[in-house]
């Protein structure tokens, strides 16, 4: 019964700045440990696994259970919980962290502490996790482990006397990391006799099992046959199966006791019933209160999504519903566009999240999507005293009815080598940043603190940062507040007709520049039509920029005799196919990619 003994369980995650070696370390740890405990091997759980294998079920690697034979001769169960690595997913990260008791902090021996290193450590400490550092990539020529060790002690305040100096890539000193998991991360506490109290930290939809809910058991025991109650959504379900995570697959078991991490299925029909952050308890014997920290994910960025083929609207709805199961932060509601027809206004945590969703709709659901300009949520205060949360620029009331508007502002930290402080400060200035402070971490590196309007960083801020710092800057932010701002709606007119899908909200000072760039971009995106097409940007009915797509001059085949006909036919068929990739707006054909491409403004200054 050793595996049910809480003192031999460790629930933890690995946190790191991007590319510091988080996944490589996880891979090494999986390689150096086992999948099953001795007792499980005797129970021939392998049979079950074969069935799983035959059904081709694989799970995404949000959590993996490892069996570690420690140097003290004891067998430990490690539950390694993955955390998304991007600032967009801070809420998901926080729920994953809440399922852990400790964290391994990986720091690159060549780069030292970066913006996300700090952000992740602070987040882990907020969740009362025990954090121990490891220094990775020590075998690289440019490694400076001593300096980095000093940095960790000075900047983060973590003791580094016995920090493992490792190379995850080449498997150096991984055993030290495994041993420190036992000594530095506390075992879970919790009473199996209490009523069930479990945290949902992830979920996914499996076509055989239905909704699979990932949980960390705080108190009590979760077993098949039990009727459970989701405390935030109010849903009640009968548990069908419980189990834990083998590398790449589900392994069913009899029960999940307090302290364990695992999954359950309950033939959950409504995919919205299992929300990341919700608390699961027994319907008959509920726990006293829900675990803290549940919040309905707040989308920060909105855009319209339309099926390129208007017939696919129901398919898009179905796909979004399925995606929402794995992705509590995704919101959507139906909307219509004059230019694009029926679609959805979707809310995302950030631009990366939006790109991930678009990518999945394309890859997993084979849906061709046209998305409109992403925007943030603006607060519009009207002259009649009412207030409006604006997610779609088209819904902006007439300027005469607007008293003032507010936009979200973030606290941003850019960590940068001193060589690039100038260019990065200039970038932040251009993006309407309000300078707060500069803090030097060491002689050559500093943290620049700025207040930046969110809408200035959702488009291409990361790219601009990268190019202007030659990759030596890292960035993190958190929402600060809403602040009043001088905002206007920019309309884009194609052939003198406003294209609602291209409207966006912009600060008055930057309107001319943005309008000009949009027109230039769009002009290049629209192929020549039979007639001349003006492309204009307008604010409040006033044209502020214009470009012209010249009329097509010539598209003609000089020769077409007996032997040319079949070839000519193929040519025309191809031309016709090309038209299907176009969206007709008014009487102008615009390539579907154009709606997305025009947003990628070049950062050339």
């Amino acid at each position, binding site marked *: 019964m050793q595996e049910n003994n809480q003192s031999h369980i460790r629930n933890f995650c690995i946190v790191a700045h991007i590319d510091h070696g988080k996944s490589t370390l996880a891979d090494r740890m999986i390689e150096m440990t086992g999948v099953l405990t001795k007792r499980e091997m005797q129970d021939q759980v392998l049979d079950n696994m074969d069935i799983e294998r035959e059904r081709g079920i694989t799970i995404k690697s949000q959590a993996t259970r490892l069996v570690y034979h420690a140097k003290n001769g004891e067998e430990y169960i490690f539950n390694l919980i993955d955390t998304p690595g991007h600032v967009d997913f801070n809420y998901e990260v926080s729920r994953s962290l809440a399922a852990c008791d400790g964290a391994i902090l990986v720091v690159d021996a060549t780069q030292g502490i970066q913006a996300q290193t700090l952000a992740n450590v602070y987040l882990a400490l907020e969740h009362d996790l025990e954090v121990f550092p490891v220094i990775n990539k020590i075998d690289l020529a440019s490694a400076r482990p001593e300096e980095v060790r000093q940095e960790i002690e000075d900047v983060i305040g973590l003791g580094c006397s016995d920090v493992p100096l490792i190379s995850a890539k080449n498997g150096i000193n991984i055993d030290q990391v495994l041993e420190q998991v036992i000594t530095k991360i506390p075992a879970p506490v919790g009473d199996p006799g209490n009523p069930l109290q479990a945290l949902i930290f992830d979920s996914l939809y499996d076509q055989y099992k239905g909704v699979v809910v990932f949980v960390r058991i705080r108190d009590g025991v979760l077993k098949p046959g039990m009727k459970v109650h989701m405390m935030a959504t109010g849903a009640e379900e009968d548990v069908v199966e419980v189990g834990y995570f083998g590398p790449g697959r589900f392994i069913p078991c009899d029960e999940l006791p307090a302290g364990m991490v695992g999954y359950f299925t309950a033939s959950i029909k409504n995919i919205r019933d299992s929300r990341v952050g919700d608390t699961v308890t027994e319907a008959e014997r509920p726990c006293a209160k829900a675990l803290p920290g549940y919040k309905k994910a707040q989308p920060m960025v909105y855009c319209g999504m339309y099926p390129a083929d208007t017939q696919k609207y129901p398919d898009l709805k179905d796909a979004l519903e399925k995606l929402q199961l794995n992705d509590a932060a995704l919101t959507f509601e139906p909307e219509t566009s004059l230019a694009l027809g029926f679609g959805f206004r979707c809310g995302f945590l950030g631009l990366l999240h939006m790109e991930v969703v678009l990518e999945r709709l394309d890859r997993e659901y084979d849906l061709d999507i046209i998305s409109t300009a992403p925007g943030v949520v603006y607060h519009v205060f009207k002259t009649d005293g009412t207030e409006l949360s604006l997610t779609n620029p088209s819904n902006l009331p007439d300027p005469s009815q607007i008293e003032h508007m507010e936009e979200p502002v973030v606290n941003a930290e850019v960590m940068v080598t001193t060589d690039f402080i100038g260019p990065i400060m200039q970038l932040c200035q251009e993006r309407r940043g309000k300078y707060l402070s500069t803090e030097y971490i060491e002689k050559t590196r500093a943290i620049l603190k700025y207040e930046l309007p969110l809408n200035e960083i959702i488009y291409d801020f990361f790219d601009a940062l990268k190019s202007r710092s030659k990759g030596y800057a890292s960035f993190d932010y958190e929402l600060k507040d809403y602040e009043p701002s001088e905002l206007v709606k920019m309309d884009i007119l194609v052939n003198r007709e406003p294209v609602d899908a291209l409207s966006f909200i912009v600060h008055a000072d930057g309107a001319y520049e943005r309008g000009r760039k949009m027109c230039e971009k769009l002009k290049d995106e629209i192929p020549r039509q039979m007639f001349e097409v003006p492309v204009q940007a307008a604010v409040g009915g006033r044209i502020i920029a214009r470009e012209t797509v010249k009329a097509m001059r010539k598209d003609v085949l000089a*020769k077409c005799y007996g032997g040319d006909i*079949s070839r000519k036919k193929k040519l025309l068929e191809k031309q016709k196919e090309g038209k299907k990739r176009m969206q007709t707006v008014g009487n102008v054909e615009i390539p579907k990619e154009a709606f997305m491409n025009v947003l990628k403004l070049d950062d050339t200054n």
Partner: protein
Amino acid sequence: MGERELSQGAAAAYERKDHTGALSLYIHFPFCVRKCAYCDFLSAPADEETREAYVDALAREIKTAGERIAAQQPGHVQYVDTIYFGGGTPSLMTSAQTDHLLTAVAMSFLVADDAEISAECNPGTADQEKLAAWRSMGINRLSIGAQSFHDDDLKRLGRIHTAAQIGQTFRAARQAGFTNISMDLISSLPGQTTGRAKEDLCSAMALMPEHLSVYSLIIEEDTPFRDMYGSRETAPDPAYLPLPDEDTEREIYHRTWQLLEEGGYRQYEISSAARPGYECFHNIGYWKGHEYLGFGLGAASLYGGARWSNTPDLQEYTEAMSAVPQRDIRRELSVLTEKDRLEEFMFLGLRMTDGISEEVFAKTFGKTADEVYGDVIRKQTEQGMLERSGGRLFFTERGVDISNTLMAEYMF
């Protein structure tokens, strides 16, 4: 009624003639002296022995085709109203070879008394004697590949002849008794100005041919010109003369037809003009869906509701023709569906200046053009690209400029 009829062009005239049961023949001679820089046809130099073997194979193919048709419909001899010798350079054929082929045709088909029998002829490859022999064998229309009247342009195109030789060949043809001569020109050549294009055209018109085809240069794949000028995406090598820009190209194009009209020619297709009554009936057949059999290497056919083309492999072709029984050399055989036929009716018919007849459309398909293409027709007429008049639908001048874009809209 009379005036409208007269104002209508070649397509209408062709439709008035009864082609029921008639067939066109195309005979391909794939050999030339040297490959031209712009040429993407199935054509290459070859020795006399190869040419002779090829002509033998051609004659066999023609005979077998006649026999097969006769076998399908006993007692019936297929009536033929146009024959066209294309290439390559058919004027490289000896008189004996031409005779061999025409004899094979005469033995296998019923050639109409007034059949149009054309042959392509390159300047410098046929003397008066050969042309007179052709005339006596029944060839009554000559198409001379002039391409340009500027020696430097001819050189750049990779032509084997000079401007002076064009006139010589033309006069020899007249002497030999040809009263229906066409001439091919290529416009928008590298470095060409509107002035030089006009000089070419006027030189051709001065010879007073009955028919002129003027093709805007197309840089085709797998030609030396493509290597020189790169793809559309890559910039041309500055060492070569630049191609005229689009505006110049269109100016040359429009001025060409204007000059020809002034000189008494009538444009009847995107690249063709003729004195009234001298339009090429064989070519009109292609644009009107008339059935044709193509003989020879790579030759295309439309027959019995199917399209196919022969193998482009010379050895395979000659061997298959002498095998007993003859082996099938048809490739890319496709039986046309109604959709195919509708598409072809439109995109081929609309190449002609007087376009398609709504009456013929209705007769052919049992439904009106509006029932099938109402939306497209309405849109294109509103855009000023298509005109509807006198029961016909045809492209406007502007419509011709972007005809591919417009034709694509008739595809399903």
